[in-house]
Structures are given as structure tokens and as C-alpha cells.
């Protein structure tokens, strides 16, 4: 989140808004301190029910959409990293992210429709993921689980979260959010195995970034 604040400060354009949305059923208790540490001046939303992911058909975080002055989406659904991140040390060290997304974003804010990074309606609609009846139903089940969780009914929360995962098995959001209730957490063995299966079966953990070749 601090890096997005840096990007927002660098862009510093009154006609550009940055809306950062935490997809967290844990709510303000878990997302708030991370937001606060970034000293953000952008718009901050804690989205317990993953309304934004559902609205834009995202299945993972971080994901993003660029929306122009007319309300039209001009890029959507890319693994949205503002820079290359490195975490861990030695053999445990991993890197993720890229250094091409932020320059592309800045180019769009500066040039608008003339930016080479703006995509056509056909490209954008082609890049919007399917959101089938079952996937929409998964959203409804997930939110029902969230309500039960918020009222301390863990068993029913798990029941409806499991239904959501069955109805939308491709939602990394649902899988990892559900894992936050387990001892191993969202980045433990279960998730690492799943990530391995994703990669070995040729599935995209994120939709590929269309920027490298520019």
C-alpha cells in the first residue's frame, strides 16, 4: 500500500483517482492497520463481501481496472503490481511484480485515449472473465458465510464458504480467504500446493500482463 501512495503522489493529477479496495472478510481489524501504515490520501475501502472483485469479475488479488472519464473500462484484470517486490532472504527469497505497470498507468493518465496502453472495447470485453450463474451464486453463498462469521457462527460460515468454493473453484480469492480461518493460514502448504497445481496445469494464476511486449 505504501507503494501505491508513492505512485499516487507521483501522478498528482486532480483528475485521477486511486481507489484501493481491501478484499477482506476480516474487515477493518485486519485491513485498517495496513492502510494506516501507508498514510494514504487515496480512497480506501474495506470490502468484506468482495463486492468489487465480483463486480469486475476478478478472481485474485491484486487485480485492477482502469476506468476513463466516460466510465468505460480501458484495461482490466491484470496482476496489478506497482513495482517488483522482493521478500524473504537467501533461498527463501522470492520476487514478484513488475516494473512496467506503473509507467503504463502514468502514460494513460497523461495522454488519455491517445495512450498506447488504452485497450479497445473489444479487447476489454474479451479480457473480462466469464461470471456464470454458478459463479454469481458463489458470491451469494460467500456473503451468507460472511454474515454468519460476523455473528460468531463459525460452522455456518464455513459451510457457506465451502459452497462458494465448490461453485467457483477458480476463485483464488475464495480459497485464500477461507484459508485465513485455518491454522496454516492463506500462504501455507495448502495454498502452495494449489499454486503448484495451477502452474503445472498451465492455468493462469493471473491473466497474463499484456504490457511486456510494448
Amino acid at each position, binding site marked *: 500500500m505504501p507503494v501505491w501512495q508513492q505512485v499516487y503522489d507521483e501522478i498528482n493529477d486532480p483528475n485521477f483517482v486511486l481507489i484501493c479496495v481491501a478484499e477482506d472478510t476480516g474487515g477493518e481489524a485486519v485491513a485498517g492497520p495496513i492502510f494506516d501504515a501507508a498514510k494514504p490520501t487515496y480512497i480506501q475501502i474495506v470490502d468484506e463481501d468482495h463486492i468489487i472483485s465480483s463486480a469486475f469479475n476478478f478472481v485474485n488479488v*491484486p487485480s485492477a481496472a482502469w476506468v476513463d*472519464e*466516460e466510465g468505460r473500462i480501458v484495461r482490466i484484470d491484470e496482476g496489478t503490481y506497482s513495482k517488483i517486490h522482493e521478500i524473504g532472504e537467501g533461498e527463501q527469497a522470492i520476487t514478484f511484480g513488475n516494473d512496467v505497470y506503473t509507467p503504463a498507468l502514468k502514460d494513460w*493518465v497523461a495522454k488519455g485515449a491517445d495512450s498506447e496502453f488504452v485497450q479497445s472495447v473489444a479487447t476489454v470485453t474479451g479480457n473480462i472473465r466469464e461470471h456464470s450463474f454458478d459463479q454469481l451464486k458463489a458470491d451469494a453463498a460467500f456473503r*451468507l458465510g460472511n454474515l454468519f462469521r*460476523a455473528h460468531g457462527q463459525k460452522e455456518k460460515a464455513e459451510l457457506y464458504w465451502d459452497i462458494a468454493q465448490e461453485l467457483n473453484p477458480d476463485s483464488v480469492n475464495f480459497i485464500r480467504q477461507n484459508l485465513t480461518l485455518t491454522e496454516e493460514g492463506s500462504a501455507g502448504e495448502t495454498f502452495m500446493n494449489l499454486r503448484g497445481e495451477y502452474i503445472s496445469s498451465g492455468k493462469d494464476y493471473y491473466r497474463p500482463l499484456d504490457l511486456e511486449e510494448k
Partner: protein
Amino acid sequence: MSEVFMAYPELRHPFEASQIHPQGSTTVLYQGKVITLLETGGGDSLLINPEDLARINGFELKPEGVCYEDMCIPMTDDLLVTQDTRKWFDLTAFADLLAQPYVVDHEAGVWSFAEIPIKRENMKVNAMAPEFELTDRQGEVVRMSDFKGKKALIVTWSSW
């Protein structure tokens, strides 16, 4: 690595047991809203007071049908149900008509409705950003439509 992604693990179970709604009422979830209905009709369907429809999903009963903004769904006989002279609107029949999924927990009296697919058509066909309504951390209501005339980057993240 897990420490980095699992910030604040002590807050993963912060929720205390509490009542969802007053005895005898029904709760409807729709697009992040939690709507308590003090009265509903009997049976397996969700029969609501027609006056409650607008605060659930924005639709209103008009002479031309069941309407939201410039869209009207023609009224059909099964949408209005009479029980003991009382008229109810069948929200589940309306959802079925619109191919809107829902999940119900009868024991708790909670109905969770997904987004109405017809409200998403303009994104699928014309790449128009979907409308949403959420409250930000400062307590301000944020809608996609608030940002007309500006460029917006909407980016998701999570603590997990």
C-alpha cells in the same frame, strides 16, 4: 513468507456470537447491504412487502412493470401473491425471472441474493464499468458513477 502475508493473525477470529435480527424477522443480503424485513409472507418463497423492494435492489413497482432506472420488467401474475387479502411481492420468483442466483438459510431466515445479471450487461457488451456502492474508511459512500469526468484506477489487495 507466511508472516508477510498473514498480518495480524491474532485478529483472524475477532467475531463474537450475536443475533442476526430480531426474532421473527428476515434478513436479505444484496450487494453488500444487509436489509432486515420485519414482515414477510408464508411459504418457501420469499414474499416481501412491495414497499420493501426498492430498499433491497432499487426496483420499484410502476404501472409499466417492475422498474430500475430506464429498465422495466413486465409484471407477471406470479410476482404478486395474495395471502389473506394481503398482497406480497415474490422476490424469489422475480430473481428466477432475471436469472439472479440466491442462497437461503431457512433456519436463520437469511436470504443472500447475487447481483442481477441484467445490471451487468453494459460491462460485458460495452466495457462500461459496473456501478457499485460501498462505504470507505472515512464513512463516505463511494459509487463508480461518482468519478465521471475523472480517470480512476480501482485496485484490489488483501491482508491474507
